[in-house]
C-alpha cells in the first residue's frame, strides 16, 4: 500500500510540476519574447487621437466680400473601439439617423484598420437627431457627437460652377497620386475653385492626443497638434457683376463670362441651370444626388467652360481678322448682297438682302453673303490658324478642374477624321461659324478681349490672392498671358472699327449704353438640337477695353435680341453708377 501511495503521489507531483512549467513557459513567451509587442498594444490602448478639424479657407470676392464661409455643425460619429453589442446598437442608430443599416456597417467596415478613430456617419446632423442621440447616450455606446465646420455658400447657387462644392473623397481619388496624403472620409472639392485650390483651402486638421480609460473617457491630454486653418482666397469675381449676370440670364439656359480684358481676371462666370452647393456641404444624400445628376437641364454642367457650342456669327470676328491679315479683304472691300451666294452648283441663302456693303457694314449687319465671299477667298486653313491664334478650339488654362477644348476644324483634321478633302463649301460654312466649329463661352470672351486689347491672349483665372492663414502674409498668383496675336495696326483698326459699328448701328444696337463705347459681335448659331443659340461677345470701353463679355443663350434664336441685352446688363453693372471700373484696385 505505501508503495502504491508513493507512486501515485510521485505521478501527481510530476503532473503538477508539468502544469506549473507550462504556465512558466507561457509567461516567458508572452512577457519576454513577445513583451515588446504587448507593451506597444497597451500603449495604443490608452491613447486616443481626437480630431480637431481645420476650418476651410474662406472665399472672398474681389472686393473682399465673403462668398463662401463655414458654419459650426454637429457630426454624429462612431468609435469602433467602444461599440458594444453592435447587433443591438447599430439598428437603433440607423433608425435615429434615418440611414440604411447597411450603409453604417459599410462605413464601419471601411474603418476597420483604425479602431481608435471616430467614423463619421452623419455630417450636419439636424438638431432633432443630435437631441435624440444625446438622450439615448447610455443605449448607444461608442456613438459620439463632434462639432465640425460645414461649408456655407452665402449666396446659394450664385457662381456655383466656379466656386464648386465639397464631397467625400472617393476610392479612385484616394488611389490617385494627385490626392496623395488625403484620407478616407476627407471632404474635398469636387468642382470649381474648391477643387483646384483644395490643398490651399483645406489646412491641416489638428490632433488632440488624450489618455482614455476603457470606457473612452478622457483622463488627460498627452499631446496637442493644433489645427491649421486653411488659407483664404480672394477671387477675381465681382459679386455685383456676378449677380447682374445671373439676374439677366434669369431662367434661360446659358452662360455669361465676364473678363478683365487686360489681365484675364474672371469678373463673373455664370451658368444656368445651376445647383446649390450647400446641398453637398455635409455630404449629399444619394436621392438628391440622383435628382441632380439626371436632371435634363443638366444643372451640374458648367456651360461656360465644360460645354461647347457652334459659335455662329461671333466666329465672323475670326473670318474678318483672317481675311484682313491675309489681304483677301481690306477696309475698302465691297460685296453686293442680294440674299444669295452661289458656290459651284450650290446656293447659300442669306436671311436678308443687304445690298452693297463695305467691310465695316458687312460686319455690322452680319451679312452672310459678305462673309461667304471672304471665307471662300481666305480658305479654311487660314481661318483655322487665326481662330487658334485667338484661343479658340483649345483649353484656356483657367484654374478650374475641367474644361472643354472645343474644336477648330481644318483640312488636315477633315481628312483625318472624315476621310474627305476640304471643299469650298466647308470654307463657306466655317466663315459663318457653322460646320464643325465648336467653342466654349469662355473661349469667346477671351477671343473678343484679345481683339479689343490689341492682341494679347489673356489667361483667364479666378484667384487674385492667397491670404496667409492667421493673418500671415498673402501672396498673389502670377498669371502669364497665354499668348499674343501679332495684328498689323491697320488690321486691328479696321476690325475694331467694324465691331464698334455693330453696336452703333448694326445687329448689336440693343447693347448701346449712353456714355460707354461698346464694341462686339452678335451671333445666332444653327445647331442640330433645336432653335439657334443666341450669342453676343463684346468689350468696352472700345479703344481701351477693361471688360470683355461673352453671352450664350441656348436656343435663344437671335443674338441681338436675346443675348445682347444680357451683355448690356452686365456692362451696366460693371460701368454703371456706383460701379468702379475694376482695374487693379479693390483688394481687401
Amino acid at each position, binding site marked *: *500500500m505505501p508503495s*502504491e*501511495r*508513493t507512486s*501515485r*503521489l510521485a*505521478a*501527481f*507531483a510530476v503532473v*503538477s*510540476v508539468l*502544469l*506549473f512549467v*507550462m*504556465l*512558466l513557459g*507561457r*509567461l*516567458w513567451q*508572452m*512577457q*519576454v519574447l*513577445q*513583451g*515588446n*509587442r*504587448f*507593451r506597444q*498594444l*497597451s*500603449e495604443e*490602448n*490608452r491613447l486616443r487621437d481626437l480630431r480637431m478639424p481645420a476650418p476651410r479657407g474662406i472665399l472672398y470676392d474681389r472686393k473682399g466680400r465673403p462668398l463662401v464661409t463655414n458654419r459650426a455643425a454637429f457630426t454624429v460619429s462612431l468609435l*469602433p*473601439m467602444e*461599440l*458594444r*453589442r*453592435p447587433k443591438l446598437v447599430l439598428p437603433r442608430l440607423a433608425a435615429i439617423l434615418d440611414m440604411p443599416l447597411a450603409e453604417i456597417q459599410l462605413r464601419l467596415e471601411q474603418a476597420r484598420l483604425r479602431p481608435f478613430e471616430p467614423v463619421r456617419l452623419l455630417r450636419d446632423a439636424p438638431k432633432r437627431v443630435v437631441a435624440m442621440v444625446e438622450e439615448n447616450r447610455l443605449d448607444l455606446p461608442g456613438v459620439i457627437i463632434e462639432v465640425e465646420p460645414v461649408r456655407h455658400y452665402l449666396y446659394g447657387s450664385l457662381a456655383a460652377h466656379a466656386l464648386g462644392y465639397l464631397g467625400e473623397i472617393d476610392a479612385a481619388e484616394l488611389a490617385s497620386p494627385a490626392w496623395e496624403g488625403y484620407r478616407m472620409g476627407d471632404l474635398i472639392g469636387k468642382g470649381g475653385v474648391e477643387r483646384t485650390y483644395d490643398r490651399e483651402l483645406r489646412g491641416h486638421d489638428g490632433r488632440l492626443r488624450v*489618455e*482614455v*480609460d*476603457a*470606457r473612452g473617457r478622457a*483622463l488627460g491630454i498627452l499631446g496637442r497638434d493644433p489645427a491649421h486653418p486653411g488659407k483664404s482666397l480672394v477671387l477675381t469675381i465681382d459679386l455685383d457683376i456676378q449677380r447682374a449676370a445671373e439676374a439677366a440670364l434669369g431662367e434661360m439656359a446659358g452662360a455669361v463670362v465676364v473678363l478683365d480684358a487686360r489681365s484675364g481676371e474672371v469678373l463673373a462666370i455664370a451658368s444656368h441651370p445651376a445647383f446649390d452647393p450647400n446641398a453637398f456641404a455635409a455630404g449629399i444624400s444619394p436621392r438628391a444626388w440622383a435628382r441632380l445628376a439626371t436632371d435634363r437641364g443638366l444643372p451640374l454642367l458648367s456651360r461656360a467652360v465644360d460645354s461647347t457650342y457652334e459659335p455662329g456669327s461671333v466666329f465672323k470676328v475670326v473670318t474678318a481678322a483672317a481675311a484682313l491679315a491675309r489681304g483677301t479683304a481690306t477696309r475698302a472691300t465691297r460685296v453686293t448682297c442680294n440674299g444669295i451666294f452661289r458656290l459651284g452648283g450650290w446656293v447659300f441663302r442669306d436671311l436678308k438682302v443687304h445690298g452693297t456693303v463695305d467691310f465695316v457694314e458687312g460686319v455690322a449687319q452680319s451679312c452672310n453673303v459678305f462673309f461667304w465671299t471672304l471665307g471662300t477667298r481666305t480658305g479654311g486653313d487660314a481661318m483655322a490658324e487665326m481662330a487658334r491664334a485667338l484661343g479658340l478650339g483649345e483649353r484656356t488654362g483657367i484654374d478650374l478642374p475641367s474644361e472643354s477644348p472645343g474644336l477648330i476644324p481644318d483640312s488636315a483634321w477633315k481628312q483625318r477624321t472624315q476621310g474627305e478633302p476640304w471643299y469650298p463649301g466647308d470654307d463657306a460654312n466655317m466663315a459663318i461659324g457653322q460646320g464643325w466649329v465648336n467653342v466654349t463661352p469662355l473661349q469667346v470672351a477671351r477671343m473678343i478681349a484679345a481683339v479689343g486689347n490689341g492682341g494679347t491672349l489673356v489667361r483667364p483665372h479666378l484667384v487674385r490672392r492667397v491670404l496667409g492663414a492667421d493673418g500671415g502674409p498673402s501672396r498673389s498668383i502670377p498669371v502669364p498671358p497665354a499668348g499674343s496675336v501679332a495684328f498689323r495696326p491697320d488690321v486691328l483698326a479696321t476690325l475694331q472699327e467694324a465691331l464698334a459699328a455693330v453696336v452703333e448701328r448694326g445687329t448689336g444696337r440693343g447693347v448701346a449704353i449712353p456714355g460707354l463705347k461698346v464694341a462686339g459681335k452678335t451671333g445666332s448659331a444653327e445647331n442640330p438640337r433645336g432653335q439657334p443659340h443666341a450669342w453676343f461677345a463684346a468689350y468696352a470701353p472700345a479703344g481701351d477695353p477693361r471688360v470683355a463679355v461673352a453671352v450664350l443663350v441656348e436656343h435663344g434664336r437671335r443674338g441681338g435680341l436675346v443675348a445682347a441685352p444680357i451683355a448690356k446688363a452686365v456692362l451696366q453693372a460693371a460701368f454703371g453708377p456706383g460701379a468702379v471700373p475694376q482695374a487693379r484696385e479693390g483688394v481687401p
Partner: protein
Amino acid sequence: MRRVLRGLDVPLLVATVLLVAFGLVALASAAVPLGGPWAYVRTRLVHLALAAGAMVAAALVDYRRLAGLSLVLYAGMLVLLVAVLLFGVTRLGAQRWIPLGPLGGFQPSELAKIVIILTLARSLSTPNLPSTLPRLLPLLGHVGLPVVLILRQPDVGSAMVLVAIMLGMLFLAGVRLRLLAGLGGLGLMAAPFLWSVLRDYQRQRLLVFLDPGIDPLGAGYALNQAKIAVGSGQVWGKGVFAGTQNLLRFIPEQHTDFIFTVIGEEMGFVGGVLLLLLFMVWVWRALRIAYTAADRLGMLIAGGIATMTVFHVFVNMGMTVGLMPITGIPLPFISYGGSSLLTMGVATGLLLGVGARRRKILL
C-alpha cells in the same frame, strides 16, 4: 495544541503568509481605479482574520473526528446549496451568494470543495476500493449532486473544481487506471450534452478561447485585454500601481478572477515566476504531508487539497494568458473574495493538522 505546534509545517505556513502578502499588494493596486488602494484591502483584512481563525481551528480539530461528521457536513452543504438557489443574491448574472451583511456574501460552492474533500477522503479510505464502473456510481452520485446544484447557479468553474478534486482523489486513492480511463470515456460521451447545457455566453467563451480573433470587441475583449496586460509587463513589470491596463480599467474583474493580470503587468515575468514558485512550494508541502500522513484518510485529505489548489492555479492563471478558456474561478490566496480565502484557510489548517499527526516512523 502543543502537538500541532511541535509538528508544524513551517515552509507551508511561510509560503501561505507570503502568498497572502503578495495578494494584498496586488489587491491594493487593482483597487486603485476602483476607489483607491484601501477600497478592498480593509475588507480583505477582516476576511484574513476570519480565515486565520478558521485555519487554526481546522488544524486543532483532529481531521479524523472531522471526517466522522461526514454525513452532517454533506447534508449541511446540500442545504446551503439549495438555499443559495432559493434566497441567494444575484451578481454578474449568477446566483452564488448568501448575503451576510457587512461581510458581503458567502458562497456555499466554496465550502462545498472542503466538504467534498473530507467526505470523499472518508469514503475512499476504506480498504476495498471500487473496482468497477457500477461500483463507482455511488461516488459519482455523491459528487454529482452538488455539481448539478452548483451548475444551476450557474457556476461552471466551481463545478469543474469538484470534478477535478474527485478525479485527483480517485487517482491518489489508487483506483485502477483502467477505471479512471473508463470514467474519462464517459465524460467525453457526455460532452455534447454538456455543450447543450451551457449558456450562450459560456459557449461564446469557449469559441473565443479557440480563436481569440473572433469578436475582439465582444467576448474576446476580456481575453485580449488580459493578454495585453500580462505581456506588456515584460521582464520587470511596469511597477506596482503603474499598470496602465489596470489603472485605466481595461480588464474586467481585475481584483477577483483576473487579478493575475495586475501582477503580470506591474511585476512582470519576475513577479509571475515568484508567484508560481510560492505555489509550487505550497503544493510540494501539501504532497509531502500527504506522503507522510498517518493514515489513508489524512493522505487523501492532503491530496484532495493539493488537487484543488493545483487546479485553481492552473485554470485561473491559464485563462489570463490564453492557455485555458475563461472560467470564473479565483486564484487561491490572491483573488479578492472572502469565501475563497476562508476555504484556503480551512484547507491550510487541515494540511497543518494532518501534518502534525503524521506517521510515527518519521518522528
